[in-house]
């Protein structure tokens, strides 16, 4: 005995219809109404729901695609950054190496130039010292000669008394008179 038999067996004959099952007409009308409703829902509601679902799906898919694209871009950027970091480190090393080389070259050149300048200054200073020594010597000799001349003139002038002066004048007259 199945459940339906039990249910049908429990039917009360005093009542016009089973307490559980509706009347046939009601079932028919209900079924028709249900069919109409479901048909209407299928015809008018389902496309809208389907479209909404499709739109939703497409939106989600688009967001997934965008996220994937963003991730790819981020990974690409990360790769570029890592590459750039590597390049920067390499460039830094190269620049430092160049700077070291240039510094060494400048230092070497500077030492060479300074050595040359020092040598030139020494040569020039030596020449100037020699010239100054010679000039001072010349000036000293000239000054000594001048002072000697002054001293000599003064000494001779002091030695020339009036009588000697007159003798010099007379000597001039005699010399000029005898020169013809």
């Amino acid at each position, binding site marked *: 005995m199945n459940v339906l038999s039990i249910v049908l067996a429990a039917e009360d004959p005093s009542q016009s219809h089973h307490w559980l099952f509706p009347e046939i007409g009601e079932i028919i009308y209900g079924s028709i109404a249900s069919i109409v409703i479901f048909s209407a829902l299928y015809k008018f509601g389902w496309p809208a729901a389907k479209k909404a679902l499709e739109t939703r799906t497409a939106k989600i898919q688009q967001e997934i695609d965008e996220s994937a694209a963003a991730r790819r871009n981020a990974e690409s950027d990360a790769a570029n950054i890592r590459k750039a970091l590597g390049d920067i480190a390499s460039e830094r090393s190269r620049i430092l190496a160049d700077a070291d080389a240039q510094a060494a070259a400048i230092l070497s050149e500077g030492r060479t130039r300074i050595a040359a300048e020092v040598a030139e200054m020494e040569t020039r200073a030596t020449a100037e010292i020699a010239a100054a020594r010679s000039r001072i010597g010349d000036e000293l000799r000239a000054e000594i*000669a001048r002072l*000697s*001349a002054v001293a*000599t*003139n003064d000494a*001779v*002038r002091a030695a*020339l008394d*009036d009588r*000697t*002066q*007159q003798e*010099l*004048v*007379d*000597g*001039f*007259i*005699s*010399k*000029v*008179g005898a*020169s*013809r």
Partner: protein
Amino acid sequence: MSGQQITAYVNAMFDVASANDAVAVVEDEMFRLARAYETNEPLRSALSDSTVPVARRQGIVEQLLGGKAHNVTVQLASLLVGTGHVSLLPQVADALVKRASSEKQLEVAEIRSAVALNDAQKTRIAEALSKTTGKKLNLKVVVDPTVIGGIVATVGDEVIDDSVRTRLDQVKSRF
């Protein structure tokens, strides 16, 4: 310009001196004043200083020569100072001496001596130089201590140098 000025001054001075019959005296006094101007630095500064009023400088000339020199000499020297041409005094005086000498057919003989010469010595020197050069001379004696001793005589372009200074220079040049 200064050559023309000198000539103009000399002509004017000669005419004034001639008019006063004092050419010989004036040219001799101008010559001596010129030599004093050349050798005396304070006198040269005093007469050339343009910051000193002209009247004051002319006063110096009159004070210096007044009573000792001919009035014409004083006036002519004062004229040079007054016109601001006192720096031309040596050239003017020399040119005046030359002009006065040439009027008498004399050649100027400048005698530089370390000591003053007496008249007898001047005469003997003039005779000796005349005999040597064959010219009549107008002797101008300048006492010049730088000569030291002896005499330097200049007649025209000819120089007879028998000075101790020159002898010393010759000795020095040998060293």
